[in-house]
C-alpha cells in the first residue's frame, strides 16, 4: 500500500463478555478513497464503527487516526479531529428542524463564545449566519433545502438517511463513516445516493468508509473492499477480487 494511511487499526479486538465481536482486525484506509466494509449480518461492522468513533474502547489493539492514537478518547474529541459518522438506526435530533440538525453539528467549529451568545454580540451574529448559510448549502446538495424548516423526523426514511450524511458533513470531517446509508431506499434512490457520495467526496475532499448490504452500491463506488465475518477479516481487495474470492462466496452463501 502506498502513502500514509488516514486511519489504521492494529490487531483491534473487542469482547462483550464471551462474545468476540471484533477479532484482531487490521484496517488501513488511504486518504481520499471510498472503502467498503462488508460482511453478513452480525459480522461486527457497526461495532467497528463504534470502536473507531470512540463509543467503545477496544479490549486490545490500537487505533490511529491521522497518525495519532485515538482509542480511549471520548467520541466528541475524535469527532473534533475530523471523523464523522452516520448511524444504522437513524439518530436525528428529533425535536429539531432539518436545518437545526445540520447547524447543531457545526457547533464544533463555532467561533462564538458563551458570553457572545448571552450578549448577542456581533461575533455571535456572524457565526450564526455562517452556520445557517453553510447548513443551507449542504442541504441544497442533498436536495433537502426545501424541507429546512420541517421537523427532521417528519421526513421520509430515505431523506432522513441523507440528512444524517448532511449533518455529519457539518462537522467538517476528513473521514466519513457511513453505516448502511442505502438501507430502506428504493433502487432509484440508491443510485442517486451512490452519485451523491462520489460527488461529496470530491467537493469536501473526504475519505469514506462505507458499510452497506446493497451490493450494487458497494461494488459501484468502492475502490477497495474488506470483508469481515464473525469479527475477523476474511478478504481485502478491489471489488472484482473480493467478488471472486471463494471465502467471501462461502461466507455469504453459508450465512444466507
Amino acid at each position, binding site marked *: 500500500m502506498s502513502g500514509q494511511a488516514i486511519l489504521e487499526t492494529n490487531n483491534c479486538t473487542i469482547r462483550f463478555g464471551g462474545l468476540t465481536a471484533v477479532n484482531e482486525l487490521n484496517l488501513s484506509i488511504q486518504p481520499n478513497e471510498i472503502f467498503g466494509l462488508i460482511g453478513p449480518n452480525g459480522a461486527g461492522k457497526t461495532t467497528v464503527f463504534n470502536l473507531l468513533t470512540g463509543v467503545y474502547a477496544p479490549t486490545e489493539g490500537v487505533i490511529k487516526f491521522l497518525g495519532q492514537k485515538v482509542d480511549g478518547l471520548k*467520541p466528541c474529541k475524535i469527532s473534533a479531529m475530523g471523523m464523522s459518522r452516520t448511524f444504522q438506526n437513524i439518530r436525528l435530533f428529533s425535536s429539531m428542524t432539518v436545518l437545526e440538525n445540520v447547524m447543531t453539528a457545526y457547533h464544533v467549529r463555532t467561533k462564538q463564545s458563551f458570553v457572545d451568545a448571552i450578549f448577542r454580540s456581533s461575533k455571535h451574529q456572524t457565526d450564526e449566519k455562517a452556520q445557517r448559510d453553510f447548513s443551507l448549502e449542504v442541504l441544497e446538495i442533498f436536495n433537502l433545502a426545501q424541507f429546512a424548516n420541517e421537523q427532521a423526523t417528519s421526513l421520509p426514511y430515505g431523506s432522513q438517511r441523507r440528512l444524517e450524511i448532511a449533518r455529519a458533513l457539518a462537522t467538517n470531517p476528513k473521514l466519513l463513516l457511513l453505516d448502511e446509508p442505502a438501507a430502506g431506499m428504493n433502487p432509484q434512490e440508491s443510485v442517486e445516493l451512490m452519485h451523491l457520495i462520489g460527488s461529496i467526496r470530491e467537493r469536501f475532499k473526504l475519505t469514506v468508509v462505507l458499510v452497506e448490504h446493497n451490493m450494487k452500491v458497494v461494488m459501484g463506488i468502492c475502490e477497495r473492499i474488506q470483508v469481515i465475518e464473525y469479527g475477523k477479516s476474511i478478504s481485502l481487495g478491489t471489488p472484482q477480487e473480493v467478488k471472486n474470492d471463494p471465502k467471501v462466496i462461502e461466507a455469504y452463501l453459508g450465512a444466507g
Partner: protein
Amino acid sequence: MNTLLRILAWLGASIVAVTIVESILKSLKNYQIMGSDIITDYGLNIICLMGISISLAVSLQLINGYTGQFSLGHAGFMAVGGYVAAFITKSTLTGANPPDQSLLGTLPVYIFALCAGALAAAIAGLIVGIPSLRLKGDYLAIVTLGFGEIIRLVIENIEAVGGPRGYIGIPKFPKWTWLSAGGFEGTFSSLSWIFLFIIITIIVVHNIVESSFGRSLVAIRDNEIAAEAMGIDTSFYKVLAFTISAALAGFAGGLYAHLYGQLVPNTFNFVRSVEIIIMIVFGGMGSITGAVLGAIILTGLPEWLRIMAGLRSDSLPSWINKSLGYLPDLRMIIYSSLLILIMLVRPQGILGNYEFSLSKLLGKSSKNLPKTTEEKKA
C-alpha cells in the same frame, strides 16, 4: 464595546420600565373599584412571589427542559444563594460600621451580595452537575434530591445563620426614590428588583437557547450518542447547564431573602423543588413562555380560587354560589386534579415547546429561511 453599550442601554431601559411599572402598581393601591381595593399590599406580595417563581421555573427549564436532565435540586441552589446573600447584607448593613443609608451607600452592598449568592449557588450547581455525567433519569433525580437535602441540613447546622430556627433580621430592600419628573415619582424597591431579574433571566436563558450552545443542549436531550458523535462535549454542556441554572436560582434566592427579611431552612426542602418542576411540566417542558405561565398559574392558584369565590353574588343561582364558596378549601384537590388533567389531555404541558414571539405575532419572519412546503401551499 458595541456589545457593552447595548447591554447598558438594555439595562437602563429595563430599569426605567420596571420603575414605572412598580410605581403604577403602587399608586393603584390608593384606588378602589366597586368598593374593593384594586391592589393591596397582600396582592403586591403575591406578585413578588410569582416573580420569584418565574425566575426559578425559567432557570430550571435550562436543565430539565432543554438539556433533558432530571434535576430535583433547585430549592437547594435557591437556599445557597439566599443564605449567602442574606449573610453578606446583614453583616455589612447592620454590622459594626454600616455604610450610609443612601442609595449610593446601600445599592452596591445589595448588588454585591446577590451576585455573591449567585456565585455560591453556581459552585453548588457545578458540584451537583457532576453526577449528571454518569446518571440518567430517575437515578439522577434521586441524587440531586439528596444534594438538595444535604444543603438544607448543612444550613440547619450553621448557628451563624440561625440554624433550624431560621435566619431573621435580614435587611429588606429599601425603597429608593430616584426618578422624579413632572409630578411623577419613581421608586425602586423589592418589586422592581424582582421584575428586573425576571427580565434578565428570560433574556439570558432565551439567548442561550437560541444559539449554537442552546442547540447543543437540546441535542443532548434529543440524542446523546448522536450529540457526542457530532463533536458536542456532552459532559461539559451538562455541567454548564447545571451551573448557569443554579446561579440564576441562587440570585432568585437572594431576592427572596431580602423580600421577606427572613429565611427558614424548611422552606427549601425537596417539596419546593417539586413545585418548580410541576410549574414547568404544567406550562410545557422546553418553553420559556410555558415556564412563565406555569409559575403564574400555580403560584397564584390559591389566590385565583379566592378571587373566584369572591364572585358570589345574589344574581347567580344558589348552587353556583355554593360551589364557588367551596373553592378555596378544595385548593389541594383542584391543584392535583389540574395536574392529572394536564397529564391526560396534554402531556407535553399547556404550551409544549411553543414560544411566544413578538415578530411571529406581527407576521414578520425574524429569520431568513426558505419557506417550508406548508407555507408555500398557504
